[in-house]
Every structure is written in structure tokens, then in C-alpha cells.
């Protein structure tokens, strides 16, 4: 009996040691990764790096046109996914119950879409936007392709936001005789807005991090884009190209990687801030 107890106790100690070791190893390897990028990238980032054009295949110079292309791709992506996504989310939340067949079908299809590997979305974008619609390798194709990836994330978050609006609001609006359009615009949308914004920010984060879907939709060209039909290189593609295809491009790749991480961290913090600011207070009241 005492032996069994001793065995069990030593097992417990061993487990504690293992769990702590795992936590230390995991955090150490991740801190190694982050500190490496931050340390090496810090030396590269400067005002000139952000405002200069890349020279010598990107080994020297900066990333200005790449930042512009990235922002344009994001702008296209947002401009397309916000109206469509908002419409779909409102329909799913307000006009279709859980049992409704049409709503269920759309939810399922979006769930599967959310799990699609980005390279498959990229193949589709290349076949559909670049070739079938004739947009070629362009910022427009890239942004539209990213919109396919962002939509399921955005719709899910926005739908939750509308669902969280208490029914009393709808009943009161109906009792006041407001039309559905007015109810939606003046009652539901303002209340659901923080959730919609969080969904949008999450989507932007996903789009900003994406590389594989952009390589053969928005392309590689690192010049300043003149229009949305020009090819433009996104920041993530720039990191990939510098590190894989340009010998000696590593130093600037570190700089670009740090810029990307800072952008994503900002987005992450914004999401947390909005969540804390708007959701904690509301979740207390019924």
C-alpha cells in the first residue's frame, strides 16, 4: 500500500516536471523565434527603409512600393468582403433560424471554405480572376482572392455580433413601427458594430499574413503600382522572394518580416482592445 502511494506520488512529481519542461521548451523556442526576428530586423527598419524603393532585387533600398501594393490589395479585399459579408451575416442572423435549410447550407459551405488551404484558394483565384475574368496578375485579382479567404471569418464574427443583440431591441423597434431597413440601420447595426469591426480586423490579419494565395494572383512585380490592374508584390511575398530567390537578401527580409510582425501585432492589440472595451461591459447586463 505504501509502495503504491510512493509510486503514485513520484509519478505525480515526474508529471509536474514534464509539464513544466514542455512549457519552458515551448516558450523558449518561440521567444527565440521572435527575438531573432526583432533583433535582426531592428537594424534594418528606418524611415528610409519604409519610404525607399527596393534596389538590386531588394537587397538594398526599402519597401515603399511593397507597402503600397499590400495596402491596395487589402483595400480591394475589404471593399469586396465588407458589403457581401455584412449582407450575408445579417441574413444569417436576422432572417434565417438554425433550422432554416438555406441558412444551414450557407453556414456549412462557409465553414468548409474557412478550412480550405490558401494554396487551393490561390489556384482558384488564378483560374477564375486572372484568366477567366481576364484580370491577369494584378492587385485586383490578389485582393479578390484574399476576399474569398476573409469572407468566412468575417461573416462568422459579424453574425455572432448580430445574434448577440437582445431581442428586446427588435421588439421595441417593431412596436415603434420602424421599417426593417430603419431597424437594421439605426438599431441593430450600431449595437453589433464592435463585433463586426473585430471580425473585419481578424480578416485583415489573415489577409496580411497570406502569401501562398498571392504568389500567382497578384504576382511579384516590385515597382510602384500605377493602377489596380498592375501586378503588385505584397509584403509577405517580398519576404518569401528575398529569402528564397535573392542571395544576400536576408537582411532586408528581416526588416520586412519585422514590419509585417509589427502590423499584425497592432491588429492583434486592436482586437483585444475592442473586445475589452465593448464586450466585457455588455456581457454583464442582460
Amino acid at each position, binding site marked *: 500500500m505504501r509502495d503504491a502511494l510512493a509510486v503514485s506520488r513520484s509519478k505525480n512529481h515526474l*508529471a509536474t516536471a514534464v509539464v513544466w519542461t*514542455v512549457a519552458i521548451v515551448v516558450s523558449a523556442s518561440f521567444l527565440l523565434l521572435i527575438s531573432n*526576428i526583432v533583433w535582426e530586423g531592428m537594424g534594418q527598419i528606418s524611415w528610409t527603409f519604409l519610404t525607399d524603393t527596393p534596389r538590386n532585387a531588394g537587397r538594398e533600398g526599402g519597401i515603399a512600393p511593397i507597402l503600397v501594393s499590400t495596402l491596395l490589395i487589402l483595400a480591394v479585399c475589404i471593399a469586396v468582403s465588407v458589403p457581401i459579408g455584412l449582407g*450575408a451575416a445579417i441574413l444569417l442572423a436576422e432572417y434565417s433560424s438554425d433550422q432554416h435549410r438555406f441558412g444551414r447550407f450557407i453556414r456549412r459551405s462557409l465553414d468548409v471554405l474557412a*478550412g480550405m488551404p490558401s494554396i487551393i484558394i490561390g489556384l482558384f483565384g488564378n483560374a477564375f480572376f486572372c484568366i*477567366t475574368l481576364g484580370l491577369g496578375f494584378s492587385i485586383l485579382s490578389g485582393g479578390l482572392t484574399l476576399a474569398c479567404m476573409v469572407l468566412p471569418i468575417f461573416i462568422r464574427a459579424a453574425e455572432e455580433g448580430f445574434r448577440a443583440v437582445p431581442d428586446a431591441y427588435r421588439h421595441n423597434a417593431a412596436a415603434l413601427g420602424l421599417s*426593417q431597413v430603419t431597424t437594421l440601420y439605426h438599431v441593430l447595426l450600431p449595437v453589433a458594430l464592435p463585433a463586426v469591426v473585430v471580425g473585419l480586423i481578424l480578416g485583415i490579419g489573415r489577409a496580411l499574413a497570406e502569401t501562398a494565395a498571392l504568389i500567382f494572383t497578384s504576382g511579384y512585380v516590385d515597382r510602384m503600382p500605377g493602377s489596380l490592374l498592375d501586378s503588385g508584390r505584397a509584403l509577405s511575398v517580398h519576404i518569401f522572394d528575398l529569402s528564397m530567390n535573392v542571395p544576400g537578401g536576408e537582411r532586408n527580409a528581416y526588416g520586412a*518580416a519585422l514590419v509585417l510582425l509589427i502590423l499584425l501585432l497592432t491588429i492583434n492589440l486592436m482586437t483585444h482592445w475592442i473586445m475589452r472595451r465593448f464586450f466585457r461591459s455588455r456581457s454583464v447586463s442582460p
Partner: protein
Amino acid sequence: MSRWRRDKILLWALRSCACLAGTLLFLIVLFLFIEAAPALSNIAFTHFITDTGWHPVEGLYNLSPMLMGTLWATLGALLVATPLGVLSAVFCHYYAPPAVATPYRRLIELLAGIPSVVYGFWGLVMVVPFIAQYQPPGASLLAGIIVLTLMILPTIALIADASFANVPSHYLHSAAALGLSRWTTVAQIILPTAKPGLITAIVLATGRAIGETMAVLMVCGNVVNAPQSVFEPIRTLTANIALEMAYAVGNHRAALFVSGLALLIMIVALIILAERANGHRQHA
């Protein structure tokens, strides 16, 4: 315009948005099939498994080395990342003092958001040279497994963490009342209770690993090769598409879409598996 008509128009606008979003998936599948059709009709299906190699220009379309590459890299990463990820979540919930658990959780959340291209870049400048010191060339299946492990670990840890949070607290109180040790509580009560969540975590991580492109493209060496050891370079299905899509034409291009279809089938199978694991639970 009467408000009745405006409401009607609104409803139809919303419906068409939802339709557009809902049919996107079918459009994607349709286009994969359309683009893969030339290969599927011109090349007998067995060619994709029995040809002597992947030389699309010479009409040899054996996809199996790439398939093996994807499977080995995924399997390796899962074997390492699953215990690490689950134990990370156990650490957060049952071992770490709150002052440690919160920053640890934030770190994992942060890592879940790091782009794959950054993981790949770090693998290329740190992991590959490190392996090359002992076993050249360094860009290898092992490097791929290490980088993929780091990428899917946050996924597993976060979902496991969430499913531990759903374990009813009276289970823990009962265990404490019985005087069970911490590890016995975790191993005998927590893990079995959270099992469906853990399976979901593993399935989602598998999907992420199979579909991952950039990280493996950057560290695996990309030699079409059925690996004999973890130190040999491999090329995955996804890397193959990313590498050759830019210049592929005709049957070659179609063959790349066939490999896209193969990926799609794997992912759909995983999604079905995940739903089974969840017991057809309807999401709220």
C-alpha cells in the same frame, strides 16, 4: 418608395449576398475540376501513381513522392506537436500560477497569428543551417517537421485550452475531495472529458499542416524524392503547386490542379472526421 418595397429590396439584397458567399465554395470546387479536366481526361488516373517520376515536360506525372512528402511532414509534425500542445494547455490550466498562465496564453495566441512566411523564413535562416552542421544539406524533412510543429502547436494548445475550460468544475472539486493527485486528475478525469475537443484540435492542426505551403516550401529543399530518412529533402504537394504554377501550361498546369484536387479531398475528409468527432453538434 413605400417602406414595404424597401424592406423587400433589402431582403433580396441580403439574400443575394448570402448566396454569393455560400456558392463561393462550389465555384472553387467547380474551377478546380474545370482546370484539372484536361489532365483527368488525357492522362489515365494510374499515371499519377505509377509513372517513373514527376517530369511533366516529358509527360511523366507521378504525384506519389509529393503525396508521401506531405504525409510524412504532417505525420511528423503531429507526433511532436500534439503532446507538446496538449501539455501546454494542461500547464496553463492546472499547473501554472495565474501570473505565469496569462502571459503564456498570450504568447501562444500571438504565435497563432504569426504568418507562415515568417515561420518559413526563420526556419530557413536558423533551423536549416543548424541541421546542416550535422547532416547536410539541412533543408530536409526534419526542418519541415520542426517548422510545421511550431506552426500547429498554437492551434492545438488554444483549442485544448478552450476545451479544458469547458470541463465542469464539480469534476475538479470531486477529484480534489477524493484526494487525487494533480496528475491523476489530469490524466484520468480532465483528458477523457475533454477528448472530443482534443480530437477537434488534432484534426484542425492536421488540416493546417497538410495545407501549409510557404513554411514547407522554404525549408524542405523541394527535391522530388521519396525520403529514406528525415535528413533528406522532400517536396510537398502544396510546395509543388507553388513552385511550378508560374510557368506550367497545358497538361502540366492541369496536373497541378489535380494535386489541388487531391489536397481538397484530404481536407474535406478531415472536416467530415472533425464533425464525427464532435458528434454532429450544431454550432451556435
